[in-house]
C-alpha cells in the first residue's frame, strides 16, 4: 500500500511537472515571444516566465531579439566599366517588430527571413555594383576608393526595400566582406603579374649587362687615356733626351768627315749585330790580302 502510494505520488508529481511545462514558458533576456491563440496574435511577451494555454490553443513563437548576421553568396556582378567582380556582403539584421515578422514569415522562420533578405540583397548589390567602376572598389590611391559609399548605397537600397513591405526587420549594418575576380580573370591577373615580374627580370638582367659593358668600356677608356698620357710623356721625355743629346753635336762638327766615318762604323756594327750573311770579294779589306791568290782564268 505504501509502495503504491509512493508510486502514485511520484507519478502525480511527474504529471504536474510535465503539465507545468505545457502551461508555462520562459522568454530569455535576448528573446522576444509572440503568443498566438488559435492562430491569432494575442500578445508579445518580454523576457521572463509567462503562463499560456497548452498547444494547440496557444502557441508561443520565440525570436532572438539580438542582431543576427549572415554573409551572402560570393556572387559575380558587372561593374560600370564592364568588369566582372565577385563580391560578398555581410548583413546584420534584427527583428524590430515580432508580430509583423511572424505574419511575414511562416512560423516566424528566421531561415525564411534570411533568404528573403538575401534575395533583396542580391538585387540591391547588383544595382549598386553596376553603378561603380572597378577603381571605386580597388584603388592604390585610398582617396579615390569609394568603399564606404558603396556599402552605404547597398544598405540604403536594402533598407528601403524592407521598409516598403513591412517585414518587421531592421537592417543594423552591412559591409563588404570579400572582393574577388572570377577564376578565368584571376588567371589572367596572375599572367599579368607574371609579365610584370618578367619586365623586372628582363630589366635587371639587361641593366646588369649594360652596366657591365659600361664599366668595362669606361675602364678601357681610362686605361687608354692613361697609356696615351704615358706615351705622350715618354715621347716628350725622349724628345728632351734627344734635345739634350743634340747639344753635343757641335763637337762632331769639328771634323765632320771623321764623325761620319765613325757613325758609319757604328752603324755597320749595329747592322751586323743580328744574324746575317755577307759576301765579300778580294777588294774589300781585310780580304784584299787574298787578292790574286786563286784564279781560274785560263792562261793567267
Amino acid at each position, binding site marked *: 500500500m505504501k*509502495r503504491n502510494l509512493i508510486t502514485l505520488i*511520484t*507519478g502525480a508529481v511527474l504529471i504536474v511537472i*510535465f503539465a507545468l511545462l505545457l502551461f508555462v514558458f520562459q522568454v*530569455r*533576456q535576448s*528573446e522576444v515571444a509572440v503568443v498566438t491563440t488559435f492562430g491569432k496574435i494575442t500578445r508579445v511577451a518580454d523576457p*521572463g516566465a509567462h503562463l499560456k494555454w497548452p*498547444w494547440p490553443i496557444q502557441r508561443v513563437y520565440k525570436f532572438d531579439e*539580438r*542582431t*543576427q*548576421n549572415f*554573409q551572402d553568396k560570393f556572387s559575380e556582378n558587372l561593374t560600370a566599366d564592364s*568588369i566582372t567582380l565577385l563580391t560578398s556582403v*555581410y548583413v*546584420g539584421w534584427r527583428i524590430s517588430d515580432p508580430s509583423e515578422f511572424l505574419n511575414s514569415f511562416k512560423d516566424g522562420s528566421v531561415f525564411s527571413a534570411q533568404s528573403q533578405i538575401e534575395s533583396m540583397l542580391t538585387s540591391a548589390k547588383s544595382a549598386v555594383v553596376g553603378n561603380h567602376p*572597378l577603381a571605386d572598389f*580597388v*584603388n*592604390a*590611391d585610398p582617396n579615390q576608393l569609394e*568603399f564606404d559609399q558603396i556599402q552605404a548605397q547597398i544598405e540604403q537600397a536594402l533598407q528601403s526595400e524592407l521598409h516598403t513591405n513591412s517585414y518587421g526587420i531592421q537592417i543594423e549594418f552591412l*559591409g*563588404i566582406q*570579400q*572582393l574577388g*575576380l572570377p577564376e578565368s580573370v584571376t588567371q589572367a*591577373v596572375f599572367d599579368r*603579374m*607574371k609579365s610584370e615580374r618578367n619586365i*623586372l*627580370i628582363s630589366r*635587371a*638582367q639587361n641593366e*646588369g649587362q649594360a652596366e*657591365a659593358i659600361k*664599366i668595362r668600356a669606361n675602364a678601357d677608356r*681610362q*686605361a687608354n687615356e*692613361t697609356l696615351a698620357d*704615358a706615351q705622350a710623356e715618354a715621347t716628350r*721625355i725622349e724628345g728632351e*733626351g734627344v734635345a*739634350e*743629346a*743634340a747639344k*753635343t753635336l757641335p763637337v*762632331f762638327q769639328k771634323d765632320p768627315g771623321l764623325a761620319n*766615318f765613325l757613325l758609319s762604323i757604328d752603324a755597320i*756594327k749595329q747592322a*751586323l749585330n743580328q744574324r*746575317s*750573311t*755577307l*759576301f765579300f770579294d778580294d777588294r774589300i*779589306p781585310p780580304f784584299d790580302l787574298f787578292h790574286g*791568290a*786563286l784564279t781560274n782564268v785560263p792562261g*793567267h
Partner: protein
Amino acid sequence: MERNVQQHGLVNLVAAVMMFIAAFVVTAYAGSLAGQAASIFLGLGMLVAFVSWFQMRLEENERLEKLEVEELARTRGETALFATKGAEVFPAQRAREQFEKFFVPGFSGLLLLLEGGATWLLWRWLSESTGGLTPDRAMPAMALFGIFALLLFLVGRFSVTMARLENHRLLRPGASFLLAGAYVCFVTALGIGITGVKTELSRLDSWVARAGCVLLGLLAVEMLVTLLLEIYRPRVKGRVARPLYDSRIVGLLAQPEGLFTTALQALDYQFGFKVSETWFFQLLRKSLLVLFLAQLAALLLSTCVVIIEPGEQGVLEHFGRLAAGRPVLEPGAHLKWPWPADEVRRYRTGQIQTFNVGFTPDAQSEAEPTVLWSVVHTKEVNFLVGNPAAATITNSTAGSGDRLKVVSVGLIDISIPVQFQITNVLDWAYHNADPTNLLQELATRAVVHYLAGADLNAVLSQSRVEAARQLEQRIQADANRHQLGVKILFVGVQDLHPPVAVAGDYEKVIGATQQKIALTNAAVAEAIQTNAQAGAQAFADISQAEAGRQQTELAASARAGLFTNQIAAYDAAPSVYGQRAYFHMFPAATANARKYILLVTNTYNVLQFDLEDKIRDDLLNLNVPSTNSP
C-alpha cells in the same frame, strides 16, 4: 474472463494507436530525431497490439464455438458426428489454426522487414539529415513525450501484470511494447529536453535517435533468429507456443526486473542459500524506486550550485531575465535557484581567443620547418589590392582607359591572426546573436578594405607594421561600434606574399637582381684590372722613356767626349786611325755573320746562289765550276 482479455487487448491497441499518432505529430512539430525513432517503435507496437488483439478474437471465437458444439452435442447426443468431422464443424478453430499457421509467420516476416527497413532508412537519414530539433519547441515536446511515457507506463504496467494470468498470454506482446514504449518515450523526452536547454549538447537528440536505431536493429535480428528457429521447433500437440511476434528483447526492456530475478536465482543456486531473501536484497528491492527518486532529487539540487572556473564569467538568468543585482558571476562557487528557474551561461572572458583572417591553418603544412611563398602552406584566400606599378606600365603601352583600370588590380595572400578578449560579457552575450562570427566578419572586412586601398608593392615591402597597426585600430573601432564588448589585443600580419601561382616569378626577380649585381661586380673587377694594368704600363713607358732620355744624353755626352779624343788621335795619324778603327770594328761586327768571300777572278762567269733555300754551312756543297769548263 476471456472477454476481459479481449477488452484489455483492445485498450492496448487503442493506447498504442493514440500514442503512435500523438508521438508522430509531436515529432513533426518539434523536428526531433529521437522522436522519429520513438514513433517508429510505437508504430511497430501498434501493429503487434493489433495482431495480438485479432488473435485473441480468434481464440475467443474458437472457445465460443466449442461451447456451442458441446452444448449441441449435449442436447442432441450426437457427439460422434462432430468428433469425426471436426474440420468442417469447427470453422473458428480452423480459422485460428490457419491464422497461426500462415498469417502469424507472414506477419512476423513483415515485422522483420519493417524493423530492418526502418533501421536502415533511419540510420541513413540520420547520417544525411542536416535539420534537427527546433529549440523553441523542445520544452512542449519534452512535456508531451513525458506525458506519453506516463500514460504508456500506466497502461503497459497494468497489461503486463494482467498478462501473467492464465490464458492471458496474448496480452503480453502488446503490453510489453507499451511498457517498453513508455521507457523509450521517457528517454526521448530526456534527450529532447537536454538538447533544447544545453546548446553544447545539441547532438544528444541525434544520439538518442541512433540508440533507437540500434534497438530496432536488434529487434530485426531477434525476429530473424526467431523465424529461423521456428522452422526447427518441435511441435508438441496441445502445447501452447509463444507467439512469433512476441519479442523477448521488448519483454526484457519492459520488465528488466525479470533479468534481476534471474540473476538472483543464479546467485541463490551459486551460494546454496536464498541470497534473494536476505534483508539487504529485500531492502534494495523495496527501496529501488525511492533510491531512483533520491537520485533525481540530488540531480535537481545539484543545479542549485554553480562553479565558475578561472578565466570564465557566468551570466545568470532568472526565468529568462538577467538576475537583478548579480547578472554577472565571477569565478568561484555561487548559489542559484534550481533549473529551470535559474540558468547560467558561461563565457571565456579571461581567455585570449584567436581567429584567423585570410587563411585556414593546416596541421600538416604547419609541421613543415620551412615556409615558402611558392609552396602552399595553408588554405589561403586571394585578396584584391591596388597595383600602381602595373598601371604605370600599361599607361605607356596601352591607350585604353578601361584596360588601365583592369590591370591596376593585383592579388595578394595575407595571413592575419587576430587575438581578442571579452571585456564586457553582457555586451558580448546580448547584442549580437553570433558575436564570434560577427567579429570575424568585421576583421575580414577591415582587411579587404585596407588592401583595396593599398599599394601592392608598398604592402609587400615596408608597410607591414603600419598595416598591422591600422588594422588593429579599425577592427577595434568596428567592434566598439557594434557593441561586441571585446578588446582587440593583437593583429599580426604574419604572412604576406603574392599568390603561390606567381610567387616563383617574384623570386626570379630577386634572382635577376642578384645576377645584375654579379654582372656589375665582374665588370668592376675587370675595370680595376684594366686600369691597374694601364697604370702600370704607363709607368713602364714613362720610366723607359726616362731611361732612354738619360741613355741618349749620356751616350751623346760620352760620344762627344770620345770624339774629342778621337779627333786628337785622328789628327795624329789620319791614315792609320781610320784603318785601325775599321779593322777594330770589322771582327766584332761580323763575328755573328755568315761570311762568304768570293775570290774568283773570272768576271765573265756568273755564279748564281739561290738564297731562298737553306744555305749549307759547308762550302764543299757549293757547285764550283770545274777548271775545264769554258
